[in-house]
């Protein structure tokens, strides 16, 4: 209905970019069509009732009770039961297999996504690549995504690519990503997970295989050591101001595992689970007072001076 006018959404289930999402969207449009018929049909009956309110019985049929009872059986039992059984067959027996996780060993690639309060850790098993809040996948490739959680329940949801799957402590749930359209698709945590549930999003990049492999190779290399003096000073700040106790930067002594891996931070598009864009200004603001931007985040205010922050930002910005 009014849905067509809202196509500007960036996280819309009706603009699918994969076969599972497409099938679900088709199912939705059919259900919407059927529902509209039922809804307007029933409302039409009420409108008729309003216009004939002065007289008993029905136009044409009169006051026979059997007609009214037949109407109940027809619209209340006979027609719905056919429709519902059909819906059951189509969606819950057939379509459910289409959007199900892939059978093990049938996919070319596996990605592990770990939910944290309130960010996403993304690992590419077999490559050593660890990143955060963004997932890169090649187009037309079936990817087996294993989702787990480090703390509370989260839910992994990229509506344009597939339905959602919960991340439950103690369970290894899986979901299929199989992008059929190039682009950047926003995903978001869909299960309430605490204060910053609202700010726990991520981006999925569906890329050409060549682009994807270039990206993966870049992520696999340790970052180039800082060259400018400011950046080198920033590295010292990083290693001496507790940053290293929570964050990892490959090839350096920083091996913390509480916060996101920052090895290639500068290559990412967003910060703080895509809450703010990744640029030096926002990064500085974030380091200066994380609680102001994301109240409740586990990133503390380290009380660094403006100079130190400037150096730190220069260092982090060099991690490409």
């Amino acid at each position, binding site marked *: 209905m*009014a*849905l067509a006018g809202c*196509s*500007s*959404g*960036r*996280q*819309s289930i009706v603009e699918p970019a994969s076969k*599972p999402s497409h099938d679900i969207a088709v*199912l939705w449009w059919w*259900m919407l069509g059927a*529902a509209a018929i*039922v809804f307007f049909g*029933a409302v039409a*009956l*009420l409108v008729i*009732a*309003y216009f*004939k*309110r002065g007289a*008993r019985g*029905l136009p044409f049929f009169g006051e026979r009770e059997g*007609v*009214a*009872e037949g*109407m*109940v*059986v027809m*619209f*209340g039992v006979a027609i719905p*039961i056919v429709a*519902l059984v059909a*819906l*059951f067959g189509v*969606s819950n*027996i057939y*379509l*459910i*297999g289409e*959007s*199900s996780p892939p059978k093990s060993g049938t996919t070319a690639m596996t990605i592990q996504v770990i939910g944290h*309060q309130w960010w996403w850790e993304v690992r590419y098993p077999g490559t050593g690549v660890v990143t955060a809040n963004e997932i890169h996948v090649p187009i037309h490739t079936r990817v087996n995504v294993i989702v787990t959680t480090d*703390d*509370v329940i989260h839910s992994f*949801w990229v509506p344009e690519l597939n*339905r*959602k*799957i*919960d991340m*439950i*402590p103690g369970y290894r*749930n899986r979901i299929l990503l199989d992008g059929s359209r190039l682009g950047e698709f926003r995903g*978001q945590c*869909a299960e309430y*997970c*605490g*204060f910053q*549930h*609202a700010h726990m999003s991520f981006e999925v990049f569906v890329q050409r295989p060549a682009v994807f492999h270039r990206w993966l190779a870049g992520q696999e290399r340790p970052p180039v050591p800082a060259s400018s003096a400011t950046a080198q000073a920033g590295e010292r700040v990083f290693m001496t101001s507790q940053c290293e106790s929570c964050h990892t930067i490959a090839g350096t002594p920083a091996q913390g595992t509480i916060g996101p891996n920052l090895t290639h931070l500068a290559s990412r598009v967003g910060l703080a689970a895509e809450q703010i864009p990744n640029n030096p200004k926002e990064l500085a603001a974030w380091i200066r007072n994380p609680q102001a931007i994301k109240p*409740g985040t586990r990133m503390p205010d380290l009380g660094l001076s403006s100079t130190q922050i400037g150096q730190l930002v220069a260092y982090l910005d060099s991690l490409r």
Partner: protein
Amino acid sequence: MATVVTPRGEEYVERLERVWKPRPGLVGWLTTTDHKRIGILYFFTTLLFFGAGGVEALLIRTQLIGPNGHVLSPQAFDEVFTMHGITMIFLFVIPMTTGAFGNYLLPLMIGARDMAFPRMNAVSYWIFLGSGIFMYVGMVTGHAPNAGWFDYVPLASKTYSPSSNIDFYGWGLIFNGISSTAASVNFIVTIFKMRAPGMSLNRMPLFCYAFLAAAFSLLFALPALSCATLFLELDRQLGFHFYDTAHGGNPLLWQNLFWIFGHPEVYIIILPAFGIATSIIPTFTHRRMVFFPLVALSEVLVAFLGFGVWAHHMFAVGFATITTIYFAAVSLIIVIPSAIQLFAWIATILTGKPDFKTPLLFIVGFIVWFIMGGLSGITLAAIPFDQQVTDSYYVVAHFHMVIFGAAVYPILGGMHYWFPKVTGRMYNEAVGKLSFWLTFLGTLLTFFPMHIVGLVGMPRRNYTYPANMGWTGLNFTETIGAYILASGLVLIVLNLFISRFRGEPSQDPFHGDTLEWATTSPPPHYNFAVIPTVTTPYNMYDEKDREHDNVRLDRGEGVLATGHETPATTAQDGALDEVLEMPSYSWWPPIVGLLLACFFAMLLVAHWWIAAGFFVLGLLALFAWHNQEPSDT
């Protein structure tokens, strides 16, 4: 139709007045066992909680009026949306329907002089009041529950919610559950055993079927909630490991238990609304409900099947596919009883002579929202689609259509319909219609856009959202709608409040079809001067029966004026079985309520021995309670 009293009948009536005279003043209200007074206490208490829940809803909507809102902090937002859910479900809809409407009307509808267990009825109220205050103490002291009304672990575990917020939830709900269990036992026994002679199962008003089904659902659903919250509190306060994965526990256990309760709960909320609708529709269309047995069975069947659908709240947790389809099949077929009722209502309105006064307007509104909410409900039983939209605003839209549109509208309609019954005065019809249209418009604007905002990806329970997502305009509309809705509700309350004092005196303005209209408005303390007898399901349409009642009053037959007396009948055929003596007042219900409140307060602060002391005192109070037999008072 009011009973016409002849001079000879007058003597009996005087005697009844003397026997049933309540104790005066505040003491009378505290010690009352009169179902009508308890119903009124429930009504005003739940109305207050409705106000609180409404303010919370407006806070949520104000926060979300635009992107990156700053009305509430994330902490405050979490507390407010949690309390909104808890308040509306446990402290408003259930106590309003079962507590207020059920208590006041059920005995009147079945021709009884009180509930089966009047003192237990009183204690249900006091415990409900205690539990409501208990949970709001948390809010006032800044420790309101903040993990959602669904309260998923491990977010609600000690590790992630170390302060006492969740303990208010855990103990508060067990506390509240005691009240609802007692109330549901009371309703079931009342409906089965206290019906007027001749009122066999096939002559019972549909209102009673709805309340019977809701009471059964409550009775069998609440233990799962009590069990879940007990486990939660043992985990939190004593270090048990029910939900702790590291020690063999399982967080999905909570979800299963919670929804085993939670889904029947949804039907507990809506069934009484069905009952109210099936009372209002025949009255205002001047005909019987179409296909009586199918409507009756639908009300009960919904409650029964409602126990087999819980996992559709958990389709995204990664169950085995095979497990999910058992639930999906039931979730789809449960639509049929609702469809039967829906088309029975529509057919009744269509083939009758509908008189669109305020109560019927609210029921028409209810039908519209119920179709919309029901249809979106069907889509949620299609597993892949459910997995796509669950936990998005689509679901929020769905259940507000059902819970607000379909459960609260009949409550509002019922408030108008039975207003003359309770007060003896008429509300203002023009203002009533205006308030309906305001409410209707508000509902449409508030909840319809939520479908769309959910389909374009807005998840639930977000305290804010970014600007570039295509959600802004829709959220703005919703907030405007919420304020219109609130103004409609305030207008209703004002209309009824002013009419209480200024309204035209009125006895039976609508010619209702059930027995509550066979007595005066407001009803006397003994409800009926003569116990009515019944030969059809539409008791007031059988004027011969009612004339016969007057003749019997003349003869003193069925007056039962030697004490607090009311007849008990057989469960199926409503044959007269015995005459019961009913208790007339008791101090013990409020005392037991108070002791239980102390008990739960001590559990909250983990003072186990003091809690045990209050528990023992509570048992002693129960013993003392039963020391006083009904015939003694």
